[in-house]
């Protein structure tokens, strides 16, 4: 994909287009062109959203979702990084784990929800496990790739200064793989949120996804869309924060 230098005016056409679409939906809903019970006018959704936000009802589901997300994400990323560094550096470990991970990786993670509910119930243990599994694989794959690509000169340099293998993994291979790890973690973050919202909707035990599905079950259409906007905002904000952190951590790699 070509990259363009960002300028202040760049956002104008895109935002104008977005507002035009919302305007069209508004008109279509108000004039009865579409069924307002299914597609409520955006202004009505906005009013509902304002109530949810002002009334503070968003806080508990949002915090539930974020807490579960971060717990699972942290576990999945940590295991993915450690195993990825080892698999990318030690041939025997790679050969041991590669068939297993390649077999498990393509499973669509929401398909695991029924099995996990059997083992762990409907609560946060199930959700955290699912998020950890979903976050784990993208991080693992890109960490392995990063660790395998570390220049042998760097490793030899550390060896000639008397660094032992475990120190070389920590002080050379890990930081040298950081751009790959970060790229994997960015993908994982998106996947983790998707999987978590799905799990919350299936379990119907709180969180943004649980609230979303509860609204729909009660035919509260406007609220459903209002909560949808909140979920979207969470995804957008998390990604934006991550990209900023990523640039700061891997400042040396994009030159």
């Amino acid at each position, binding site marked *: 994909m070509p990259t363009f230098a960002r300028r202040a005016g760049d956002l104008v056409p895109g935002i104008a287009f977005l507002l035009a679409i919302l305007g069209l939906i508004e008109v279509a809903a108000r004039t009865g062109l579409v069924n307002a019970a299914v597609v409520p006018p955006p202004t009505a959704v906005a009013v509902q959203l304002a109530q949810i936000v002002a009334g503070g009802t968003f806080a508990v589901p949002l915090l539930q979702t974020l807490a579960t997300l971060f717990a699972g994400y942290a576990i999945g990323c940590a295991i993915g990084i450690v195993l990825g560094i080892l698999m990318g550096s030690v041939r025997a470990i790679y050969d041991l784990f590669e068939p297993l991970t390649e077999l498990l990786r393509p499973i669509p993670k929401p398909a695991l929800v029924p099995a996990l509910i059997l083992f762990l119930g409907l609560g946060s243990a199930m959700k955290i496990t699912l998020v950890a599994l979903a976050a784990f694989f993208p991080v693992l794959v890109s960490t392995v790739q990063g660790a395998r690509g570390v220049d042998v000169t*760097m490793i030899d*340099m550390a060896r000639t200064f008397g660094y032992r293998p475990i120190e070389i993994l920590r002080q050379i291979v890990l930081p040298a793989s950081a751009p790959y790890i970060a790229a994997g973690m960015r993908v994982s973050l998106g996947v983790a949120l998707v999987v978590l919202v799905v799990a919350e909707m299936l379990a119907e035990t709180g969180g943004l996804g649980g609230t979303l599905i509860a609204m729909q079950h009660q035919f509260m259409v406007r609220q459903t869309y209002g909560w949808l906007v909140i979920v979207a905002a969470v995804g957008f904000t998390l990604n934006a924060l991550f990209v900023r952190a990523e640039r700061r951590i891997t400042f040396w790699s994009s030159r």
Partner: protein
Amino acid sequence: MNGATDERTLKLEGLAKRFDGKQPVVVFEDLSLEVRAGEFFSIVGPSGCGKSTLLQVVAGLIPASGGRVLLGGRDVTGEPAHMVYLFQQYAKSLLPWMTAEDNVIFAFNHRLGLGPRAARARAREHLAMVGLEESAAAYPWQLSGGMQQRVAIARALSADPKVLLMDEPFSSVDALTRMELHALISELWERKRFTTILVTHDVDEAIFLADRIALLTRRPARIAELIETGLARPRRAVETHEDPRFLALRHALLEGLLHRPDEANADVR
């Protein structure tokens, strides 16, 4: 000089390196050599003759297939302390996420365990030796090629090596920078007197810097000639290159490199 007992004497005894496989390659076999304590020793040879492999075996980066490496009379196994390696690909040997100063600290502080202030002072001192005190806070990718190699030199020396192994370290900088680096390494060597092996295919460089030069044959590599340069020190960029002795050595080595190729295997002195 009682080089045999000095702990900086580097001895290769019957050193061999083979790569097994479908097409086994004998890089060298039964190579013996004594590099005297504090000597600047150059190894020249045609490209592909295995001189870099030889240096990597000496450094313990790859295992020997036979023979021994002795430093100060003691067997060297694995990655030996007190031997530091200067890579041809200096840019890749510097850690891009660390400043020049932190790259230097990386070389010694896992052993010395100095506090932040003392470590910084030691790094600055060595950066000053290579004229880079001002660039301590710069990242490697902000520095020119010659400056990067000087950071690598400062880093190598900060580890206080008894032996410095240099694998064509000046081959990828421009000619003028190369001569500056020659003068710098020559001056630092005279000050510190670490035993040095320089592997190069640049005959001028080999003569300019060395006390002795080994000319290697093609694979399997053997020492075809061992030459004492006998040039006055300190070496000077302009005068040394014009010295009749320098020119005679240059003539002999180039003859050896260019006109020996096929009968090289048979020609052992």
